[in-house]
């Protein structure tokens, strides 16, 4: 798994995840996100288009992001989910909790 984070504006950063997110790699993902989460950013644009696999451990990390941002009035927007990954979100009911949008523009916009 690879993760790259770019800070677009002080309020917004873009997170690109690539590869498989399981209990092993989720630890790395969580570590990588720890810094941006401590910043003042209120909008996380999460690009999951190159995530081929995601297990409950990955869901847990994303939930953590969602909760932290929500607390400071912000939001994480996820986009580009491939069907197997989208299915995992749906099975777990996360599609109703996390904001999943259709494009990067939508994810970045207001």
């Amino acid at each position, binding site marked *: 798994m690879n993760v790259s984070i770019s800070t677009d504006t002080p309020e917004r950063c873009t997170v690109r995840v690539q590869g498989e997110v*399981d*209990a*092993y790699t989720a630890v790395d993902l969580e570590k990588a996100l720890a810094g941006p989460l401590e910043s003042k950013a209120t909008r996380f644009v999460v690009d999951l288009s190159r995530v081929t*696999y995601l297990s409950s451990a990955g869901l847990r990390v994303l939930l953590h992001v969602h909760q932290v941002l929500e607390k400071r009035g912000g939001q994480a927007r996820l986009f580009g989910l491939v069907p197997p990954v989208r299915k995992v979100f749906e099975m777990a009911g996360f599609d109703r909790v996390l904001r999943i949008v259709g494009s990067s523009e939508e994810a970045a916009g207001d």
Partner: protein
Amino acid sequence: MPTPHDIWKPSPDDRPGPAWQHLCAALLFGVVGTVIGSLGLATFTIGPSISAFSPASTLQIIGGMWFGLWGVASGLVIGIGSDLLSNGAGGPGSAMAHVPSHLALSVLTAWVFRRRRLDPSLPTARERYTFIAVGGLLSSVLAALLTQLALLTTHNLTDLWQTAPILLLWTVSSAGCAVLFGVPLLTFFSPLITGSPLFCKSWLGTSRPFRLSDLSGSNLTLAGQLLVAIGAAGLVPIMVLSVTGVFFHGSIGHPFRTLLPLMLNLSFFLSLVVTGAAVLSVRRRVAELTDGARRVGAGDLAHVVPEGQDELSRLVQTFNAMAMDLLGSRARLHRLMVQQEHQVKELEIAGRLLEEYLPCPTPTVPNFEFAARVLLPHRVGGDFYDFIPLPGGQLGIVVGDVCGKGVPAALFMGLSKSLIRVYSTQRFSEPEPLLALNRFLTDSNPASMFLTAFHGLLDPFTRTLTYVNAGHPPPLLVRGNGGPVEPLEGTGIVIGIQADPELSRAVVRLEVGDVLVIYSDGVTESTNTKRELFGEQRLSELVTRHASESAPRLVAIVAEEVSAFAVGQPEEDDLTVVVVRCTGAEPPVASDRDSRLHLVATRENLGQVRQFVRESATALGAAEDDVADLVLAVDEAATNVVVHGYQGAGEIDVVIAREGDRLVARLTDSASIFDPTAVPVDDPERATRELRGGGRGILLMQKTLDELVHRPGPGGGNELTLVKRLSSPAPH
């Protein structure tokens, strides 16, 4: 009522009595007749040979009928004695002159009755008319003719016409007496005589020997006692009178000599007849009572004997009351029997229902073939077997033998079988069903019943049988490769006697061609006529010889062989045979090499697990979506093992197999027990909102899988079976 034929036919008890007994009877009879005859001769002497002897001639006739030749002899005594005693009423020599007529009277009727087998007690008109015709008329006419013939020579009676009226009077008098006295005498007293040892069935008598004890009160019939009493009472005065009559002969005036003895004579007969009637009445009452007793004995308890007012009425009342009591107790007994029958039937139905409620259809498991048979000689018994299909494709195989027999054993069997099934399929703190059953039985088993049992858990994917043998005869594992027969020895003591027994598990791996025979002791303990046991050796050889047969055929062979061995011996014990055969005809596993992954359980290795599952499932023909689902589920399961299971380092074993349209993954570890199916995921909302809320992974497993089964592993650890039904099974 005896038929005439019965009267004369000697019974098996009859033996010729001693002569003295018949001699005494004949003498007594002769003396009575002599006295009567002499009185008659002494009173009425109308003319030459015309006298009142006729009552005595009636006794002559009867004597021959009752006492045979002894009676004939007494008839002669009567005639000759009477003549002598009455001082030769007919003149000197008349005594001898009358001998032919006495003989005729004594012999003729007796001969006819014996010849035609007629009953002397004259029960029917045929006998009565025969007696009147032969005993009355024919004998009298013959006797009269013979007498006159004799008198013609001794009394110089030259003119037959002169004697004709005498002849007629003689005949009428004799025949009249025979009818008047003979018919009642025979009717009343013949039954007494023919029932006694004195009665002569042949001319010289056939009967059992007379014993002195026959005269004692309890042995002599009531009628017999009356007869003796009347005879003694009547005989003495008549003898006295006759002696005085003879003594006063010639010196006493006419009235005494004629009327008084005549009156006495008649009164004697009258008393005999009256007594006879009374005796007959008593006999009739006794007969009613006897008949009643017979009918009551035959079951007609409602029969009531007429009670009457006589001395027997109290006996009859008691008898009727007894019959009523019997009727009451019979009704009670009947009710009880009906009740008991009902109970037995109910128990039998219960036993059958038990069988029907506890079905164990032969299971279908790839790679394996099963067959079973239980023979219960007493319909309900303590042997049982069960095939318990378990989630994840595993199969529980149980064979048990409950101690004891009959309905209690059957009920206990039903309980044990049900509990084993429940303990196998439900989740309990004790994972081994036999141990759980043991705990139940040792906690609450007032009847102290126990059972031997074998429980095997067959995993068709790994071809392993994990078994517990609680005191059961060791099942025989006959190897398909010709290796030695392996008995699966006991791993602990019988179930139900010890609270926490040492009951360990053992594992055996089955190869293609292997045959496992699980049986009850009814097989090996069958005995033949030489009292030899069928034994384990014989069974082992038999199964080895027929190891290539199909499972049903093998069960039939064992059952037939045992039955042939024990032929002629009573079937006592229940008999159970269960055969498990590893056919290996349709391997559901891609191959052991390809579908088995063994690695150290770490987070790093989760990727390898997923890759292995993805490749194996794809190779087994699963569609992409199904593969993805199984990969996710196995990943979540493996994550649990890594995160929650092992505290330190550990290993994990993954097997993927396909069974029809089902994809099965088996995860085995040796970590501490962790049952994902026991984690509540009843609140998915909470799982999505809270970070620490557990169960997200398990929720995903439940969503992706069709079955998820956790079982403690045979040697500790966990065994998790994940089943995914293929959405569009590709041909495999």
